[in-house]
């Protein structure tokens, strides 16, 4: 765009741009890098002052994590709740998104945005009373159902534009052939939005995995998720930073790996369609 501007100043601007971008990148990655680095340090090195950059890495922190804390059973709880609520979100959300796209009736989808806007405690108070009534506090079901409130809106809003992109003539042709809406949904529309299903599954998984508040109150010591158990690691961590950083690294790993896979759709998915990535 610069046939008229000075080529020298253009080159200078490009270099300045690269330098500033590199600095920004370093600022973004350094804290995470420090976390991972600390998780491989031995206990005397992780609290060394001045802090050390060069050291002999050890897996000791990771190894002792499962000895000192029920890390593996927390991880299993996280998996059960996350997979359960992701499945629930898909089961309910995918047909809802299809119907919203077919009929152009979007108010049910808009209602789910309320869940995205309201503070979690607003829901937690009545849920707590309801689940206490049914003696469900501490059960996986209470966690899966409440995390469904996180996953279902994500599934609906991520899938909606994918369904909207299907040419309406396909629906109309199917109707002329006498196909029922359920058939169109299952046999025609769903296969056409398979990439949307992958994106919505991954985003629902990540947000359910990361969610803190509900399991903080609704889980018990047997069903506690990794995120809600973070407090235990911090209590432990006052003497054992290496273990704390190993736990933090492991908890962050699944969402980070999964998010990298769906980078292309990430922003439009996270903004629930408000921004095209």
């Amino acid at each position, binding site marked *: 765009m610069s046939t*008229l501007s000075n080529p020298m100043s253009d080159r200078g601007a490009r270099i300045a741009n690269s330098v500033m971008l590199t600095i920004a*990148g370093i600022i*973004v990655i350094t*804290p995470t890098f420090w976390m991972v680095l600390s998780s491989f340090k031995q206990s005397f090195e992780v609290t060394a002052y001045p802090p050390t950059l060069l050291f002999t890495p050890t897996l000791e922190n990771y190894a002792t994590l499962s000895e000192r804390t029920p890390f593996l059973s927390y991880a299993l709880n996280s998996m059960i709740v996350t997979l359960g609520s992701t499945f629930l979100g898909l089961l309910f959300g995918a047909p809802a998104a299809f119907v919203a796209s077919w009929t152009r009736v979007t108010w049910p989808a808009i209602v789910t945005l309320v869940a995205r806007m309201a503070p979690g405690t607003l829901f937690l108070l009545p849920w707590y009373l309801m689940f206490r009534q049914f003696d469900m506090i501490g059960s996986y079901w209470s966690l899966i159902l409440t995390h469904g409130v996180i996953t279902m809106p994500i599934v609906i809003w991520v899938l909606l534009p994918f369904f909207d992109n299907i040419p309406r003539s396909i629906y109309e042709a199917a109707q002329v052939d006498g196909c029922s809406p359920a058939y169109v949904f299952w046999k025609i529309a769903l296969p056409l939005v398979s990439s949307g299903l992958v994106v919505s599954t991954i985003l629902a998984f990540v947000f359910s995995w990361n969610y803190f508040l509900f399991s903080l109150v609704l889980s018990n010591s047997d069903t506690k998720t990794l995120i809600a158990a973070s407090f235990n*690691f911090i209590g432990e961590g006052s003497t054992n930073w290496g273990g704390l950083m190993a736990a933090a690294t492991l908890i962050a790993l699944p969402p980070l790996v999964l998010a990298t896979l769906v980078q292309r759709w*990430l*922003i439009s998915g996270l903004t629930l369609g408000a921004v095209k990535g």
Partner: protein
Amino acid sequence: MRAHSQKHQLTALAAPSVIFCVAMIAFPIIYTVWISFQSTTPTGGMRFAGGGNYSRMVQDGQFWNGIWVTFYLYFLSLALQLFFGTWLALLLFNAKRLPGILRSLFISPFMMPPVVAGMMWIVILDPSLGVANYLLTSLGLPPSTWLASPALVVPTLALIDTWQWTPYVALIVLGGLQSLPPNVYEAAEIDGAPRWKKLTRITLPLLLPTLVTAMVLRSVDLLRFFDLIYITTQGGPADASLTLNIYGFRTGFEFFQLGYSGALMITLSTIVLGAVIVLNKLRQKVAW
């Protein structure tokens, strides 16, 4: 007849999600409104309290402290994230080529759980052994008490949240930049307008709708700021980071005053809704 059964099938497909929304979202909200007019009896039951919780609220110093902390944290974080986010977006936009690894790097802060961000910053910002103070002192600056200081806890939380969410704002703004029509710069090119003038007179005004969208999305999260505070300070020291959301949660689930907690949550939800409505009005104003 066929149209009739078709409608039935569509209803059946949407039914599970509608029932789920009513049971898990709509009904609980109405229930919370009801709870907010109740008070908890010593036996754990509920008793109608009229507007008692709300009149207690306006006389409660911790409530007003919560309002102050919420908005202080909100405006500070929002300003930092919009400024650095726009800046970072312009850097990314002007880069000739963007390696994919860089994009993965930039999404890593906001895709990790806020709780993990809290855990790692607790270690980095530790007043005596943390690496942050080591860097400050080696630059000849005085060490800071960060999250342990009532005066600094809100700016420190804003800084952590800014680290986590600036790349998100940047990627949103980058999307806005990429969708600007390229020909808007042509007249400015012919006039030989300087770079910064192109930025302030053309790019930023055209970006306003995208910026307002980013503001809406961040406002909804920032006004409800919870995870990071709860994992790091739980509202302390000396209530200096006790946002309305943290205060409401602790009232409900640590002190089990469910009615008062309900009133606080209804108030906070109204604030969030109000902010979204105001910002949506603003978005319509700046649309082009």
